[in-house]
């Protein structure tokens, strides 16, 4: 790759380093693995930069590579199953159309549940965690997430909404069990 291309790559890629690391950390759960993952993704992106269509969405392109490296290299080595542990009709999944979350529940999450949030995120199967990370923390659109993960847009929505419900349900359950919230059903 010639110098101008390398400079163009660096100008596009390095502003996204924090963002890529944050996502990688949530994917792998380990700082050292996250660093390796980001380095590998950046290197592959650099090698494939000629294929990047100028003017299109570089962040989505880079995150597609990051996700592929994670799914193909990292998840394969881990014990995590390739597919989600539960089907679309899993009875453990909270029902759609959840009731209003109450002010004290928000407060309990704000003040007590930071660490538990990380653990709850780590517990989400990656099929659900990835759409959640890409949408909630990186603000990709449903269409971009569908392209990054190479799944239909309807699947993105169902997994994303379900991940949010599962997370919320787990956090509130933990807050009640820990005494941060009164044992009261949400209204």
């Amino acid at each position, binding site marked *: 790759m010639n110098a101008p291309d390398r400079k163009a790559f660096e100008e596009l890629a390095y502003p996204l380093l924090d963002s890529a690391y*944050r996502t990688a950390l949530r994917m792998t759960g380990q700082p050292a693995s996250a*660093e390796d993952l980001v*380095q590998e993704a950046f290197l592959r992106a*650099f090698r494939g930069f000629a294929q990047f269509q100028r003017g299109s969405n570089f962040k989505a392109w880079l995150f597609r590579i990051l996700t592929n490296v994670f799914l193909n290299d990292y998840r394969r080595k881990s014990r995590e199953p390739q597919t989600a542990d539960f089907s679309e009709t899993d009875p453990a999944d909270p029902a759609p159309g959840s009731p209003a*979350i109450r002010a004290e529940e928000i407060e309990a999450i704000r003040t007590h549940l930071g660490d538990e*949030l990380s653990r709850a995120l780590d517990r989400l199967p990656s099929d659900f965690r990835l759409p959640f990370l890409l949408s*909630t923390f990186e603000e990709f659109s449903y269409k971009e997430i569908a392209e990054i993960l190479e799944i239909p847009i309807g699947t993105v929505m169902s997994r994303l909404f379900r991940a949010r419900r599962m997370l919320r349900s787990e956090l509130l359950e933990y807050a009640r069990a820990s005494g941060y919230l009164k044992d009261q059903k949400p209204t």
Partner: protein
Amino acid sequence: MNCSNARDRLERYLDGELEMESNLEVVGHLEACQGCASVFEGERKFLDEIRRHGEGIAAPGPLRGRIERAIAGDAGPARPWPFVRAFVPAAAAAVLLALFVSIFSSGTAAASPDSIAKQAAAWHDRRPSSVVPLSSGPELASFFSSKGRKSCLHEKLVNASMNYGYRSACVENTGPAGDPTCWWTAACPKSGCRMTHACFKAPPGLDQVWPPGHGIRTVTVGNRTVIMGHGNGMVCLFVMDNRGEADRLVLAINSPRD
């Protein structure tokens, strides 16, 4: 719209994924229904808390160096000498300045909305797509108020685009022929679309072909759409990546809520 319809759209509404018409229906329902407004607000706060938890995580300092070394090893010793590295951006800036001067300068052929749109679309396509925070460029609001240039549709257009999640990519505050003007390009992380905005002194002769104060004009240039306004001796325009995004912006501009 009833409560069930509104709640079916809750996530897509909060994620900014609804079409404009559907979005406005939800907004209308939330204004009338306290129960749904409370559910939506609770969910929004919940997601805000989750997001807040993810803030502040940054890559460890040495990681960038590691990547740079890996890339350097991959690319070979291609890094130019320091003075060359300094010269390349300077040369690029000079070329850009020359382009600026050639665009919209008083000496060019008679201006028309179409010619302005064409030149603006070409400029838009040359802009970098990486996004940096607005604070790294001059603050648009203070720039315009200090110049006494709260003209035409500028404020409404900027507000509407910011509300749609566009973030500033690069800002120029000097334009053709040294006139105080403002050009900036932004990207919307949601839609992946880019937008260039400019507000500058109307070129000579424009009044004859496009009388000022006649509302918004939309011009298509290839797959770009340029939304333009002309008044108070100024032209304001937005170049949008595609027609869908342009239509969204026009609807927002025309909406009384904005």
